[in-house]
């Protein structure tokens, strides 16, 4: 059974194999007319694509039929246009006539017809590319441009108007990739602008009839644009250079005036200036020079009045004696003071205040503060109460330190107390200088006779005032004054290492601060404790005959002023005394002169006026 099947299969294979091959034994494949073209609308050519070959030599034939007739014609020319083509010459070509064309492939086994194609020559025109394309470089106001000119293809008869062609140009640089296409219309010449200098351009032209196909591009024309210098560019370059130059100049000017501009825009902030401070010295590192420069010549003070300034700070009017002492000391200070501030030429000296903006009382300004404090402590202390040596010493101590360098006194040989005494003496002598109508002379006590000084002082005091001015009260006051003077001097002598006897303490009249009014005026009033040796009836009306502190000036000097009642009388004394003192030597003991004492027995502000100018 199987063998039968196998044999049968083999037989089938043998039969059908030759049929399966079919290489040369089949009719040809179907050819296809792929295109027909007419270059000038007078002739045309058709090309076809042959189909599969049947293995046998195949021949092709083209048959066409015109629209108007039924006659079938065969292609007149198979060879002119090449293989598988049919060329229709002018005689066979009719325009505006439909051609029905068919290609037939034939071989031994059969023939195959292609699909028919209807064509109208008018619509299959594809001209040849334009000919004789020429490109030249021309200049338009120093700008170069290309002028392209060409000829239509020689076959296309445009002259009779049979064909109308439109043209197209394309340009590109040699190294670029993209073309630049321009439509030229029917003209045969075209200008290309916007060229790059020094570049090589490629130009091509093609054409097309009104309704047809574009021709192929003409052969490339090469043209090189020469290098040119743009006039406009040169102008721009000049402008750039010029502006850069101006910019540089402006920058330089700005730099030159940067300092003043800086001051204009950003004014410097004024900083503190230290007189005598030199930055350079600091930078140099010479600190000594720097600090020496800082040192003001008048600082620290070396003159007398400076010392007196210092002295003022330490003074206290604590106890009556000491107060008087202080006051007298202030007076002494003031005597020694060379300050011309004491307006001896005070036109208002009639006031009697001699008031003192410049007087010793100013210096007591500082002491005023202490006065208040100490006064509160010691208010009501009796006459016998002596200021503790410490206090006095404390006060007195300051004397020497301040007083010692007083040159005008020229009391180098004097010890501290003696200087004090001297001051006192001078003070007293100053008061003696006060000219008064009465001339009472005092014998100047010697240095050693300090005790004798006391009585002399007494006398001095007593005879100070004018007779008519003298009241028993005032006399008493004077005495009191003298007492106080003596006391002061005695106090001063306490410190003397020379073993000076302390003078007999007489009942003294001391001043106590009554009050300090709102005007910072210290009202001093005598505190009546007891009677002294002499008349001590210091029944003074309170609040009358006392010196008022007018004020404290800038130098912390306590300004005292006399009671207004006595001022007038002492005006002259004040004034005259001042003039007299100028003629006296400091060391001389002006015994002859009188001493003007305050009528109230207190601080004689009249004498305050006097500032002996040595």
């Amino acid at each position, binding site marked *: 059974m199987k063998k039968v099947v196998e044999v049968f299969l083999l037989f089938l294979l043998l039969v059908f194999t030759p049929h399966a091959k079919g290489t040369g034994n089949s009719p040809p494949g179907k050819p296809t007319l792929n295109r027909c073209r007419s270059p000038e*609308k*007078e002739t045309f050519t058709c090309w076809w694509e042959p189909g599969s070959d049947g293995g046998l030599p195949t021949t092709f034939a083209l048959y066409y039929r015109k629209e108007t007739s039924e006659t079938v014609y065969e292609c007149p020319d198979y060879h002119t246009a090449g293989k598988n083509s049919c060329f229709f010459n*002018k005689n066979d*070509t*009719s*325009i*505006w*006539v*439909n051609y029905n064309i068919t290609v037939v492939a034939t071989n031994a086994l059969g023939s195959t017809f292609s699909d*028919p*194609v*209807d064509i*109208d020559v*008018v619509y299959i025109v594809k001209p040849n590319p334009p000919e004789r394309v020429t490109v030249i470089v021309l200049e338009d106001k120093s700008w170069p441009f290309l002028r392209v000119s060409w000829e239509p293809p020689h076959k296309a*008869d*445009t*002259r*009779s*108007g*049979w064909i*109308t062609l439109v043209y197209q140009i394309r340009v590109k640089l040699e190294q670029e990739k993209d073309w630049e296409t321009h439509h030229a219309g*029917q003209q045969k010449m075209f200008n290309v602008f916007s060229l790059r200098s020094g570049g090589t351009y490629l130009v091509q032209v093609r054409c097309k009839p*009104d*309704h047809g196909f574009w021709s192929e591009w003409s052969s490339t024309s090469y043209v090189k644009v020469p290098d040119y210098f743009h006039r406009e560019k040169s102008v721009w370059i000049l402008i750039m250079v010029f502006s850069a130059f101006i910019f540089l100049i402006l920058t330089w000017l700005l730099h030159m005036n940067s300092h003043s501009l800086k001051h204009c825009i950003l004014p410097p902030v004024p900083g503190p200036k230290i007189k005598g401070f030199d930055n350079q010295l600091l930078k140099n590192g010479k600190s000594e020079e720097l600090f020496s420069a800082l040192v003001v010549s008048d600082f620290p003070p070396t003159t007398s009045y400076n010392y007196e300034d210092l002295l003022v700070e330490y003074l206290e009017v604590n106890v009556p004696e000491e107060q008087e002492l202080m006051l007298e000391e202030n007076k002494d200070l003031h005597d020694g003071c060379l300050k011309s501030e004491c307006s001896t030429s005070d036109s208002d000296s009639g006031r009697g205040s001699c008031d003192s903006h410049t007087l010793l009382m100013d210096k007591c300004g500082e002491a005023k503060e202490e006065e208040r404090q100490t006064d509160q402590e010691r208010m009501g202390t009796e006459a016998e109460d002596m200021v503790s040596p410490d206090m006095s010493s404390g006060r007195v101590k300051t004397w020497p330190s301040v007083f010692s360098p007083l040159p005008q006194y020229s009391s180098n040989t004097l010890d501290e107390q003696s200087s004090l005494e001297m001051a006192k003496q001078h003070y007293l002598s100053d008061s003696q200088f006060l000219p008064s109508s009465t001339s009472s002379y005092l014998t100047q006590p010697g240095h050693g006779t300090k005790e004798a000084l006391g009585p002399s002082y007494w006398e001095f005091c007593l005879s100070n005032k004018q007779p008519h001015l003298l009241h028993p009260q005032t006399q008493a006051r004077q005495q009191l004054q003298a007492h106080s003077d003596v006391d002061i001097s005695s106090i001063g002598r306490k410190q003397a290492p020379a073993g000076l006897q302390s003078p007999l303490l007489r009942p003294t009249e001391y001043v106590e601060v009554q009050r300090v009014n709102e005007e910072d005026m210290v009202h001093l009033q005598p505190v009546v404790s007891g009677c002294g040796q002499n008349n001590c009836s210091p029944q003074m009306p309170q609040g009358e005959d006392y010196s008022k502190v007018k004020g404290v000036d800038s130098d912390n000097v306590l300004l005292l002023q006399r009671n207004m009642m006595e001022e007038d009388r002492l005006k002259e004394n004040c004034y005259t005394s001042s003039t007299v003192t100028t003629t006296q030597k400091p060391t001389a003991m002006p015994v002859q002169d009188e001493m003007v004492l305050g009528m109230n027995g207190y601080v004689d502000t009249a004498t305050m006026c006097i500032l002996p100018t040595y």
Partner: protein
Amino acid sequence: MKNVWFPSLTLLCLELSMRVGTAPICAYGQTGCHVPTLADLFDRVIQQSSRMHGISSDLHSEFEQYFFPSKNLIGKRKCHTYGILTPDDKENAQRLGREQLTEVILRLLGAWGDPMSQLYQSMSRDQNQDFNHYSSNKALEISDMVHELRDGVAKMTEKMKQFGVLGNTVGNISPESLVPSSALSSYTQGEFNSLDHHDLLYCFRRDSNKVKNYLRILKCTTLPGLDC
């Protein structure tokens, strides 16, 4: 009332009967107008004919794409202008001469005035199809252009006669005598279908091309210049 009614009606009738000529430049040489030269006339006519051909070609291709996607559906048709003998070759056309060439042009243009109008009317009537709805304007434009071109060529012919370029044999040709009435009657009767539309468009496209080409030949023969 009657006195007013009758003159107004007369004016209205006159206005309707009058046809507006498309002569932008005064052709009769009125004062203040620029009288065109023969070259200008030629240029205008050629431009017009070229435009007309372009529109008709577009319309035909659209028609083919819409209705007959498969190409080459050209049946055995005959255009109604087959009676007009036209040169189908350059030599034949050159051999014809100016006068005959002008006559051919005029005949062709005259033969297509009415059919195009009818085509437009037919297309506008048949609103079912979108193609007719959107493309009927082109048919209208074509019909107008045909009329304008015919008038323009007539004027140009007159001008040429004035210049002595053309003989006096040309002219006075009525369009109806050129075209066989049988051919035209087929168009005047009944309605057109799409095939008729297609045939008309095909025939017109070819004839417009002929006109354009003949005009160009006429120009280059009469006025050889830069364009030729």
